């Protein structure tokens, strides 16, 4: 029988290894899998390459992982957050590398990786410094930049409902990068607000089919980043 359920975030992230590439879902606080990230902090893996649109807020979640010195390189589009200095401080100190990618190119590179597309052409960034050193090509008289698909060892994402087969639905704009990240990782690990019986989610509305998911763990009382920030929490 297929049962992708894990008993705890700690169990779910236990095999993430030093140097792994990890896709982390969420856009700002929406959809951020805080409990999985905190479990990864506890677990100890280091020299990680982390892919997320941002770099976290305050001293919790992704910002805490960075603050603990566990991330060697960030691949993201917007590594700044109002009121957060964790990433900028590390970056200015030369303690973390940054690959800056336009947001749509980042999403498309992840989708391409998950879809078996090694490279594609995009008009985004043509003529800018983010295209420097990249191959360009003219199609129908317009210039495009070649970008590569992006795959990863792990994805850590959050959803609202899951079943034991790994079928997922999300909540509002907390969906963001998670469906494409689920496609692009060798091992996709999901924290779900709730795990429901197989068949409880209408086949027409499943956003991420179970084929893209490896582990699900129920986190019924997930913390909200905004509440943690307001309370001034630092993890661990």
């Amino acid at each position, binding site marked *: 029988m297929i049962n992708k359920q894990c008993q705890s975030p700690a169990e779910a992230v236990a095999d993430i290894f030093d140097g792994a590439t990890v896709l982390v879902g969420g856009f700002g606080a929406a959809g951020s899998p805080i409990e999985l990230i905190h479990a990864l902090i506890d677990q100890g893996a280091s020299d990680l390459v982390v892919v997320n649109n941002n770099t976290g807020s305050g001293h919790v979640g992704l910002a805490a992982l960075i603050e603990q010195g566990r991330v060697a390189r960030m691949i993201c589009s917007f590594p700044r957050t109002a009121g957060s200095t964790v990433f900028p401080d590390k970056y200015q100190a030369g303690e973390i590398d940054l690959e800056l990618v336009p947001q749509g190119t980042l999403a498309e590179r992840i989708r391409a990786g998950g879809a078996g597309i090694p490279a594609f052409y995009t008009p985004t960034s*043509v003529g*800018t410094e983010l295209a420097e050193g990249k191959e360009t090509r003219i199609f129908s008289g317009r210039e495009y930049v070649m970008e590569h698909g992006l795959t990863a060892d792990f994805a850590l994402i959050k959803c609202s409902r899951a079943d034991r087969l790994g079928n997922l639905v999300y909540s509002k704009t907390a969906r963001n990068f998670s469906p*494409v990240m689920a496609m692009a990782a060798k091992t996709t690990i999901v924290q779900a607000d709730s795990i429901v019986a197989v068949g409880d989610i209408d086949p027409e509305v499943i956003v991420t089919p179970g084929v893209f998911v490896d582990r699900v763990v129920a986190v019924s009382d997930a913390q909200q980043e905004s509440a943690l920030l307001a309370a001034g929490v630092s993890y661990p």
Partner: protein
Amino acid sequence: MSNPGQEMIGWAREDIARNIALDIPDGSIVNLGIGIPELVAACIPKDREVIFHTENGLLGMGPPPHKGKEDPDLINAGKRYVTTIPGASYFHHADSFAMIRGGHIDICVLGAMQVSQTGDLANWSMGSADATPAVGGAMDLVAGVETIFVATTHCTRDGQPKLVRACTFPLTGVGVVRRIYTDLAVIDVTARSLEVVRLAPGIDFDYVQQRTEAELTMVENPGVEKTA
């Protein structure tokens, strides 16, 4: 003739937003950047149905929620709490940028650090070595959306012109800006020049030119302004 040293008052931020809103046709799909562009939504005339897209995965974005009704799962690209209108839809980031890159968004309104006289836009980086660069979705938007409006103060806080011959800051896109809305004027980027199509009340052409590094022209018949 205006006196170069005398500061005249032009449009307020809300006026700039209203000028833009009036140029957005009924039925448009619009993406709004952060800053003055955010004010545009509230200025759309009541008889027009305009649908707002936010690149983090929502079409049909509504106004900010009432206090106490904020939903952490419902934010816009600026990470502010928003609401939805009837007919809204959610989708993932790759689909959202397929809308942008594929030319399905009609109009995008962005802020600017600099705009060149050929429509180059710089709005993501000062290029200084001690800053953390952050680009977000700006490069995707200017590459994919047909009509790019810029909403900006005419000069920086310390009086430097933002409409320049050539951008000195790192570019967001080359030749992408269609129309510029400042506190002093509405200016089209045409094949020949930056063409002033409208002046703020009490502001004259020379006053605007003095605060503009790029060379401006005046539209032939400013009374018969065509919308973009």
